[in-house]
């Protein structure tokens, strides 16, 4: 089931885009009004018994504070939604996120965050078209870059495009990351997505560049992701004829996570994994005593057949 119905999604996006424009203009209006009030006040124009400048300033100030308080309340809703998502209850978070997109807020980052959370939920539900649409919407706004949301949006967009089989567009999305100073957490998030794209587009040499650093970084990932990164690196190393390193990485992968489970949970990983394991068996050196040959489901086997064997 789609995170939000497609028809409603378009309406929501249009509405939130319009509201974000209005928020910018409204803030600008408040600033100009306050500046004007400061300028006209010494002239001494009276509005009844009150100074006009003072009147304008008080009205602008009160309106601004009221709208800001309302927007901050929405920020709390966003926190609640984020908590629900982290507790693995995304369906309960969706109404909060939709409400944030529908109602007006001076703080545009609330809306961008809501879009990003919805994109993540859609990705988890394997609704890749919606994920791409939502992540693309976040990237339309310069504010996303300033608030550090663009990296996550780029990754979601690239991921959804790869799932839809569009490696070129995914590369285009990832190119937004060039030249950005990434934090460790962001570099961690980038690593698996970038490696997957490099493998899809046959860029094996860049995939194995700075290998030591990548392996060190993979140590910070959770078990399954770390295993996937090792499998991808092992495949790239194999294509680059770095057989010893490939074997080493595959053995490490098997110690990070159960490779059988990885193959079942992630068919695209299986498509890399099976040829690697077969190559190991042909070489007569099983990668690890604990690692059995992948017991692939029909879907997985299909993915394996489609993959380019060594």
């Amino acid at each position, binding site marked *: 089931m789609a995170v939000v119905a497609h028809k409603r999604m378009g309406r929501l996006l249009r509405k939130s885009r319009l509201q974000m424009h209005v928020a910018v203009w409204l803030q600008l209006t408040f600033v100009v009004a306050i500046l004007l009030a400061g300028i006209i006040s010494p002239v001494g124009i009276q509005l009844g018994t009150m*100074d006009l400048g003072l009147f304008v300033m008080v009205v602008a100030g009160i309106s601004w504070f009221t709208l800001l308080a309302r927007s901050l309340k929405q920020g709390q809703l966003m926190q609640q939604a984020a908590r629900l998502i982290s507790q693995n209850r995304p369906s309960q978070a969706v109404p909060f996120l939709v409400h944030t997109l529908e109602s007006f807020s001076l703080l545009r980052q609330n809306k961008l965050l809501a879009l990003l959370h919805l994109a993540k939920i859609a990705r988890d539900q394997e609704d890749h078209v919606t994920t791409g649409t939502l992540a693309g919407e976040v990237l339309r706004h310069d504010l996303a870059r300033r608030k550090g949301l663009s990296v996550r949006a780029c990754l979601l967009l690239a991921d959804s495009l790869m799932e839809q089989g569009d490696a070129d567009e995914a590369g285009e999305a990832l190119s937004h990351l060039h030249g950005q100073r990434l934090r460790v957490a962001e570099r961690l998030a980038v690593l698996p997505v970038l490696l997957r794209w490099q493998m899809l587009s046959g860029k094996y040499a860049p995939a194995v560049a700075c290998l030591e650093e990548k392996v060190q970084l993979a*140590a910070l990932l959770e078990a399954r992701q770390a295993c996937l990164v090792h499998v991808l690196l092992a495949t790239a190393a194999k294509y680059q004829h770095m057989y010893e390193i490939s074997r080493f990485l595959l053995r490490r992968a098997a110690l990070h996570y159960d490779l059988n489970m990885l193959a079942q949970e992630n068919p695209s990983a299986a498509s890399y994994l099976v040829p690697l394991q077969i190559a190991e068996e042909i070489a007569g050196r099983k990668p690890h005593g604990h690692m059995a040959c992948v017991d692939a489901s029909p879907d997985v086997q299909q993915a394996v057949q489609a993959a380019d064997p060594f």
Partner: protein
Amino acid sequence: MRSTQEVHSHGHVLRALVQRAVASDRRPPSTLVLQIGAGLLLVFVALASLGVSIPGWGWTLILSAMASIFGVALAYSSWQKRRAFHNIEQAHQWCRLMDVPATSENLERCLSSRNCPEPVRVIGLVELGHICLSAGQSLDAEKAFEAALKHSHRLGPDWLWRAEVGLAEAKLRCEQLTDANTTIKRLSQRELPACWRSRVHLVTCLQGLHMGRAQDVVARSNELWHEFRQHLGVEAGYGYGLLAVALDRCGQAAKALKFWSDATLLIRPERLVQRYPELRPLALKYGASEWPW
């Protein structure tokens, strides 16, 4: 990874950091905005007491000045908060990589800030405790964890468990076995997510080794090996190492060698020994897996 010598040279930096962080247990909240507000109030009181009449435009200017100062103070405070969160996140990642100098540098920046938000400061104490454990300063680690747990309501569940698991290990290393047992028992009885349960089991392995009950660990070694692999990521290497020690103590050399080889395939032996000195005899006895770089 930094060298062991470099780690030890940072020992005194960590100790000083713990002393400072624990001493300033109750920091006042950010007072910048309050100070500015009080200052302006004093100015008005002074003007009123002097009987100065303020024209309409004067009020406009005063209001503009107040709004500007308030805005600047708010922006400064939120910048400080963002920087504190950034530093603590960096410290957390460096701590997981066991880079003692980089972690202490980030923690120093975060904990020494006057406007460091309380939740960030408490998380900083947890990270400080863990990096002290990595540097072999168990006593300091214990102090940091206890200071953090005094404010446990400020910690999210993950940080709370991280602090409690760390405290249990610190107490084991400080030979406070009764306290350590109580903490581990409490953690074991709690409903924890799988990855935290595995971390508790890692500490249980260490407890078994400290209490001379290696055979209990050996009895569950296969089950624990799979559990560590499933949930701990690269940290499973420490688990494999501790299992290898238990196996070695019980005379199962072949299996111990295999587990040690698994451990050293994930984590370099010098780092394993730095984090768990119990593994030193194994590092001397068995050969480690070879790394291609």
